[in-house]
């Protein structure tokens, strides 16, 4: 990826980071690409880490277990119970917890040296989990209210009567049923894509200005560019966490809304 770009940029002029930087060739000529490996690795990392932390299951937790419970409790109590309510939240906790960790780890790949690629900047992955979220919240609603009951619940705002419904029902259907997986996907994909592109831009730009161009002013700009790349990387850490949180939070809110008694 970046190595190829650097080589390319060094030969033919200033680097031009773009979508092509995200189009990685298959490893060793195969169809298996880096993000595929990273996704598989994320499952191994998450399960190994959290199994090790959860395994003691002690009444008085050790350091590892305490750290694990901090994350688990954050999703379980801070997101699931807070939004879905203490009556029904329990059965959605494993899903929301998996979702949070899956997005978080795959996002954090973007700032881990050597790996340095956020899996979620390939739209297929956020789309996959957004579709799952869509299936889960709609499934929960349909299981509770029946197909037509759920459709009515999601599309007819409470207390609305008359011709205004002709306008409202399609709008609600669009926003509550059709667009939610799209917005979930785009939000996560776009922030990861743009963030990674920004880091690439400032890192490669800095490198080019410092090493491959002659004017002194360019060197100054190069230093500035590298500093910005580092600063943006730190900002990215925050955004990576926030996106994982937002994705999980929104899913739990959709579930909560789908199974709510009143609109």
């Amino acid at each position, binding site marked *: 990826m970046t190595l190829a770009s650097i080589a390319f940029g060094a030969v033919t002029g*200033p680097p*031009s*980071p*773009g*979508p*092509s930087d*995200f*189009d990685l060739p298959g490893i060793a000529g195969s*169809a298996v690409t880096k*993000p*595929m490996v990273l*996704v*598989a690795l*994320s*499952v191994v990392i*998450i*399960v190994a880490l*959290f*199994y090790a932390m*959860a*395994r*003691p*299951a*002690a*009444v008085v*937790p050790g350091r590892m*277990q305490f750290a*694990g*419970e901090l994350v*688990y409790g954050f999703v*379980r109590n801070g997101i699931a119970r807070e939004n879905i309510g203490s009556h029904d939240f329990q059965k959605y*906790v*494993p*899903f929301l*917890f*998996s*979702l949070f*960790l*899956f997005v978080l780890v795959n996002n954090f790949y973007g700032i881990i040296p050597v790996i340095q690629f956020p899996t979620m*900047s*390939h*739209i*297929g*992955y956020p*789309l*996959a*989990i957004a*579709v*799952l979220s869509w299936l889960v919240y709609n499934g929960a609603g349909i299981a509770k209210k029946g197909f037509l009951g759920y459709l009515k619940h999601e599309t007819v705002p409470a207390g609305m009567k008359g011709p205004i419904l002709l306008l409202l029902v399609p709008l609600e259907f669009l926003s509550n049923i059709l667009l939610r997986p799209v917005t979930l996907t785009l939000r996560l*994909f776009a922030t990861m*894509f743009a963030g990674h592109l920004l880091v690439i*831009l400032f890192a490669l*730009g800095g490198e080019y200005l410092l090493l491959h161009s002659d004017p002194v002013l360019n060197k100054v700009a190069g230093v500035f560019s590298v500093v910005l790349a580092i600063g943006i990387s730190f900002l990215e850490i925050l955004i990576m966490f926030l996106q994982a949180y937002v994705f999980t939070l929104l899913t739990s809110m959709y579930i909560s809304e789908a199974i709510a008694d009143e609109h």
Partner: protein
Amino acid sequence: MISTLVFAAAENAEEEELNPLIPHLAEIVIGLVFFAILLLLIWKVVAPLFEKAYAERTAAIEGGIEEAQAAQKEAKAALEQYTAQLAGARHEAAAIREEAKEQGAQIIAELRAQAQAEAERITTTAHAQVEAERAQVLAQLKGEVGSMATALAGRIVGEVLDDSAAQKRTVERFIAELEESAN
């Protein structure tokens, strides 16, 4: 500079027909498969362990609270028992004191009665003794007075009244008259 870079990037994308918004089917499938694996493992293995720890902790805390409540109840019962015992003991002490007081009074009364009886007895005895002595003295005196009077009268009359029986009768009659007059 940046705008030209971005522009160049856009151009580049168009050239290579790269659109990051078009998902690869392989990636969707792989994402779904690996997420499903993750979900399964978290659901079946990891989350139950955390929940188990939570449940055990809750149970431990609730158990502790129950234990404390039981101990408190026990302590309260013991306190009540002791209070009751104390009240009983106090009551008993009061009863004993009362009884002792009564007994004391009774003893005093008895002693007093006894003393009185003794005193009476002594008085009676003394009376009887005095009476006896008086009677003895009186009898003695009777005899002596009789003989003295007889002797005196004999001297005066000059004759010896030998007939003692008659003499005695006379004397006795005289004394009885004396006594009658005295009474």
